């Protein structure tokens, strides 16, 4: 296990939540409405319930196995090859996720805040900051997350509440939106946002009290699910489902819409800060995870030498798609469609393998004891 420092409970919780909710400021709420129409807000709810179920199965395994993480448990139960394959799959997934996040983030900044700036003028400082945060390691990153945690919560809350005058609750009807099937498929696909499962299962062994991991998992899943649910709900009742489907930057649009009398308006600049912080923390976390996993695969003692090169590859790949629209299409076609298998499937698979192995060992142990008693 590569040394990444010790972690506090609150720090890891903050990091896992922020890394998962960063997409709320980009186009995810719009995609939810596109999938579910007036019922788009229900998709995070169902996804949250599914993820809670998954964590109820997987969480106790990772909390019980002292000083073991996803990689070591996979290696012990499924073998070294499987563990390395898993690391490569997760790392590549993380890189692809970074590619779309960085491109959509920079395009969003250029579209909304800095329209005359070249995209590289936004992307280069962004990548430098992200690489620096990742290079400082998990300990620093998680503390940074804790510092911003309450600011982000207050900011997001304010953004939603200040739009109270535009809210039309009747817009949540028809209650099933496009119908049950899109809701269910959407809930399955939306599992991809619960990156917290990977963060917790990969780094939970650094906690001083690893048994707290289980509770942290439940708390973080609820926090993430509720954040997406509330933002999408407000987005739907403020913009109406028809308009929300056509608005790719929900938080920015909600910020622009704040109009409480003559004096409380034009506040979106304040909310750009929230947007940037979330994007930086998410990018830094995914960069850290991917370099950490590559370092594990190549049996490197430290991950830091890989940070700059990985960031550079992601930077280059992020400009592969020709436009913002193409990036969203790529994200929907590949990342959203398959990432549930990485984010939720892998921890569940490893936890199930560990359970089977433990049960098998217990059975063998019992049989050995029985035969010993008999002899």
């Amino acid at each position, binding site marked *: 296990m590569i040394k990444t420092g010790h972690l506090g409970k609150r720090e890891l919780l903050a990091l896992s939540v922020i890394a998962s909710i960063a997409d709320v400021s980009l186009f995810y709420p719009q995609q939810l409405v596109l999938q579910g129409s*007036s019922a788009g807000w229900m998709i995070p709810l169902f996804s949250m319930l599914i993820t809670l179920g998954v964590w109820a199965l997987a969480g106790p395994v990772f909390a019980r196995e002292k000083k073991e993480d996803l990689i070591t448990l996979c290696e012990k139960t499924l073998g070294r090859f499987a563990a390395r394959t898993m690391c490569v799959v997760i790392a590549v997934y993380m890189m692809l996720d970074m590619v779309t996040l960085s491109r959509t983030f920079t395009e969003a900044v250029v579209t909304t*805040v800095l329209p005359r700036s070249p995209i590289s003028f936004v992307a280069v400082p962004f990548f430098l900051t992200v690489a620096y945060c990742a290079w400082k390691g998990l300990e620093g990153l998680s503390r940074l997350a804790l510092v911003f945690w309450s600011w982000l919560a207050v900011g997001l809350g304010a953004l939603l509440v200040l739009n109270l005058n535009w809210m039309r609750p009747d817009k949540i009807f028809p209650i099933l939106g496009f119908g049950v099937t899109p809701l269910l498929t959407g809930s399955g696909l939306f599992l991809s946002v619960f990156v917290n499962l990977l963060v917790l299962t990969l780094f939970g062994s650094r906690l001083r009290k690893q048994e707290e991991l289980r509770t942290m998992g439940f708390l973080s899943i609820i926090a993430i699910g509720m954040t997406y649910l509330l933002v999408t709900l407000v987005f739907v009742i403020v913009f109406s489902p028809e*308009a929300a489907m056509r608005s790719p930057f929900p938080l920015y649009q909600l910020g622009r819409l704040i109009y409480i009398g003559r004096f409380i308006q034009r506040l979106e600049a304040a909310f750009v800060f929230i947007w940037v912080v979330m994007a930086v923390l998410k990018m830094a976390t995914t960069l850290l995870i991917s370099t950490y996993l590559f370092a594990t695969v190549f049996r490197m003692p430290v991950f830091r030498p890989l940070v700059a090169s990985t960031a550079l590859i992601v930077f280059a790949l992020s400009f592969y798609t020709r436009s913002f629209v193409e990036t969203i299409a790529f994200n929907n076609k590949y990342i959203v469609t398959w990432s549930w298998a990485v984010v939720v499937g892998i921890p569940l698979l490893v936890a199930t393998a560990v359970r089977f192995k433990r049960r098998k060992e217990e059975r063998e142990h019992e049989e050995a004891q029985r035969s010993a008693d008999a002899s």
Partner: protein
Amino acid sequence: MKKHNVRRMLLSLLVVTLTASVFGTGCYDRVELEGMAFVVGMGLDKGPDNTVDVTVRIAVPSEMAGGSGGGSSGGGVQLGASRPLTVRANTIAGALTLLNATVERRISLLHLTTIFIGEDVAKEGMLNFIGPLVRMRDFRRTVSYFVVPGEARELFQVNQPVLEKSPSRFNESISEIGRNTGLTVTNKLHEFLIVTEGANEDPVAPVLAINKKVQQQAEENKSAGGGQGGGMGSEGKQKGNRQEMMSDSGVSFKPGKIVRMGGNSIEFVGTAIFKKDKLVTYLDGIETRMLLMIRGDLQRTQMDFPDPQEQGKYEALEIKHARSPQMNLDLESDPIRIEIKQKLEGDLVGVQSSIDYTEEGNMRVLEDSIKKTLKEKEEALMNRLFHEYQVAPFGTFRRARSHFWTQHELEQYPFRDKLKDAKVNIEVDLNIRRIGVQLAPVTSK
């Protein structure tokens, strides 16, 4: 070890400072305030061959702070803003670019507060013109909008505010004044857009109309050198006598037809009714109040009602909603039934007749008479708009959204066809709660 840490810290500080000095001092998007021309009001008229005539007024900050001097004094000018500029283009974005052929600074919509929509644009369909604006980052959905019977350009030319000096302040004030009078609706463009995009709902818009008689009087005054007709700068005696200028015998609440003299030629009264994004008809001030009552949007507003016991006399009441109206739709019945229950409360603010309406029996008679008047007017309005135009500006269908399970079911429902013969029943409940600061009316002995 300690020395090493200090050195590292200083080095980090140096790097941060240098980086900040490079990235923090300016960027490609740096814009000096002196380089911007902020549009504060925009008018849209239809041009020939699918073109649009865009009229703008640009803020002139030096005039806002100071007096009335400068180059922009004269007809159709408010302090703090340029003369109206009109340019013809294929799109609004194109018009803004063309405007820069005559305006020396970069045109920006960041401070745009109001859009005035010419009648021809509203009739053709607002989304053709407003839709592209929503994509522009300069543009906010929180701008106010008004429909102008006639040309929007003309409105800029004749506008002579009574009080406001700043054009932005004028625009904001007129968009709020409807809350007090109930003679016009108060809307932001965001509301127009979400209603237009939604199924089975139709938007409304406040109306700004030019009173031709007052305009004529203002022009005559101007040519006679007696001020400009508005409140500000109206020096000297106003031309024309009351008999000539106010020849209509009755009281009018129609846009552009209020019987009056002096003041601004522009009137903030009436409502434009749309079918999706196309203008179909106008409501006068009284009908607007009925519309607001049905929608549950009426703020405290003063209304006159005929005295039920003394012909020719009127009683004034301040009316407001005691609670939000309840609206029930029976979509299963044929024709569909719409039932509305309103609970209003009123304050007696003016009694013209000699009858003591503070006496309980008389008060009940007055309440019943007002309830009947309101019920008849509201039902007549709903029937007219439903049966004649099949438009739904009352928010009726909002209550019906919960009747459908899916979006598909909702969109398939032939709501407009059903409106043709919809049955409307309105129950108005009114309680006169307060009677002002006097009991029995003042009478002479």
